[in-house]
């Protein structure tokens, strides 16, 4: 019976609900801009991770290595682009 119950998916669903609730608190609670943005960004990225791994089955096929390599590559490039742009146009202008 336990094989039939999608334990991982249900747990993932509950976890995403928790994350959504955590993000919502920013609206209802009186926190500073910096703290609010930190909470929002953190919950957003964890949420994206849960979606990819839990619901889009990123780690469940033979292509696991290729899929994760692509994701890490994409994240690395996104970070380089964002922080590079900040460096050029804001921090070192």
């Amino acid at each position, binding site marked *: 019976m336990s094989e039939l119950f999608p334990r991982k998916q249900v747990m993932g669903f509950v976890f995403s609900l928790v994350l959504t609730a955590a993000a919502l608190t920013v609206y209802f609670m009186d926190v500073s801009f910096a703290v609010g943005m930190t909470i929002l960004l953190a919950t957003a990225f964890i949420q994206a991770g849960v979606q990819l791994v839990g619901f889009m089955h990123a780690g469940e096929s033979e292509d696991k290595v290729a899929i994760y390599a692509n994701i890490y590559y*994409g994240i690395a490039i996104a970070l380089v682009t964002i922080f590079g742009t900040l*460096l050029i*146009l804001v921090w070192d*202008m």
Partner: protein
Amino acid sequence: MDYFDRFAIPHPSPAIYASMVAIGLTVIAILVGLTYFKKWGYLWREWLTTVDHKRIGIMYLIAALLMLFRGGVDALMMRAQTAVPDNKLLDAQHYNEVFTTHGVVMIIFMAMPFIYALMNFVVPLQIGARDVAFPRLNALSFWLFFMGAMLFNISFVIGGSPDAGWTSYFPLAGNDFSQSVGTNYYLMSIQIAGIGTLISGINFIATIFKMRAPGMKLMKMPMFTWTALITNAIVVFAFPVLTVTLLLGTMDRLFGTHIFSMTNGGMDMLWANLFWVWGHPEVYILILPAFGIYSEIISTFSQRNLYGYKSMVASIVIISFFSFLVWTHHFFTMGQGPLTNSIFSITTMAIAIPTGIKIFNWLLTMRKGKIKFTVPMLYSVGFIPIFTIGGVTGVMLGMASADYQYHNTMFLVAHFHYTIIPGVVFAMLAGLTYWWPKMFGFMLNERIGKWAFWFIAIGFNVTFFPMFFTGLDGQARRMYTYSEASGFGLLNMLSFVGAVGLAIGFAIIVYNVYYSTRHSSRNIGSDPWNARTLEWATQTPVQSYNFARTPQVDSIEAFWDHKKKGKPLFKGKIEKIHMPNNSGVPFIMSCIFFVWGFSFVFSMWIPAIITTIAIFACMAHRSFEKDDGHYISVKEIEATEKDSEVLANESR
């Protein structure tokens, strides 16, 4: 009448009116010709609706060659204008339009389709697949590119060409300084073509990951397929940046936002930044497939396996990652501090290391090889010293402090032509000559091809080498004329002479195609170059299903082992083959995209809304359409394979 005033040319000249007439007559000639020879049905059935990767590749090729000549004429006009001091051939505005068009056409509408032409034709054959992963999306990619290119090309006769350079920096490209619709054309046409490229990127990654022949591990793929994979990975990561950047630019020009403006909180340098976040990886999108082509050709004509396969793979992967780390070197002089410039200087120079590894690998492949100097090999061997000059001057430009001297001079123009022409044009001509027999069933004449090579190689150097000197002497790029006192006259005249040499070289290639079509032998077998990779294991011309039986691979050069060691390539018996159906939807949808783009260019909102709905209708149609493809029966396959030498070899 006011409504139609917007379509008028803001800056007319007799040359443009002559072009209008020429375009009109050509269109009429094509329509009449198709009707007279009753080719409409053939065109629709065999080409416009095709999803066959080989035919799509050939259509890419034709489009790329057309655009090569369009961009080439622009280049000749520029060299003619600057050939003598104070020349009046083109005025400043026309010169701006010509160099902008030259840049956009050559990068986006010549180099990109040329690369995708060869990738489309070769990659599925090299990995032993029957087609790409998503054949219909592939057709959509091509037609989106084609419509983007056509939209861009009508700009100079309807509404005016873009004139802010191929980089189209805001705020110059904003409404205040570029009032004609030219920049709208730039934004919309590249957007449409860019969507096509992005789709291709995803398509080829899926194809290479999922559709390789049994036994072909990643580290057993031919080098061209490797470079295609990495190139498409860069496409997928870089093109979304372009999409967003063009969208932001469109918002600024059409909807009154202030993202790239100097006032109202806009950030005027953000365009340059975002443009090069895409633009530098784009350079490697152009060069990596060329590296793959050279690897195939050098190995084939040195009659040796490729030296340092693993280091080749490692270096292209490293290059692809580094390509995202260097974009600031395009604007060292923009005003950021020395810390930033130093960081990007170092990353820029670091790219020379993996590139150097590749150069040495090619040289070592040739060492002790029995080199045959065929036309593709000539281009490959010619590429190495010329590209090295481009690379070394690139390192010079990469030094941030020294770059203040070179920036935006003809030195820069010479540098990037010294990388792009051997890196892309030579490679594409080499690849075209190399795979031509597989595409069309006959070989291009070698003697005429060699004449073309020497005209192009020498003409190229005569054109661009003088620019290093005029650039160091202070001739700025994009300057439409100069005084006699500046002393640039003689070297610019030399450049013009070289450009004429280049033009003669390309004319010889056209003649070669004509000559070879008429006179070349059709009886060349399926492997005329004695090559090493799987595409040569198919029949010539290639059947629609590519391989009657899927090849079984157990080494890097399976076809070579098959030929030399007699290892069987095709095992088992022929089974029925599942193939995709043709579809007219990609073509129709892309035509709608063309009207959509045109409506945005001229801010015609009602057609824009209608076409937007129509585009979504096409997508919805696809979602609800039931299309399971078709099967080719064993009987049919056996009939087509009957005379093939593949089967003959097997039965021996």
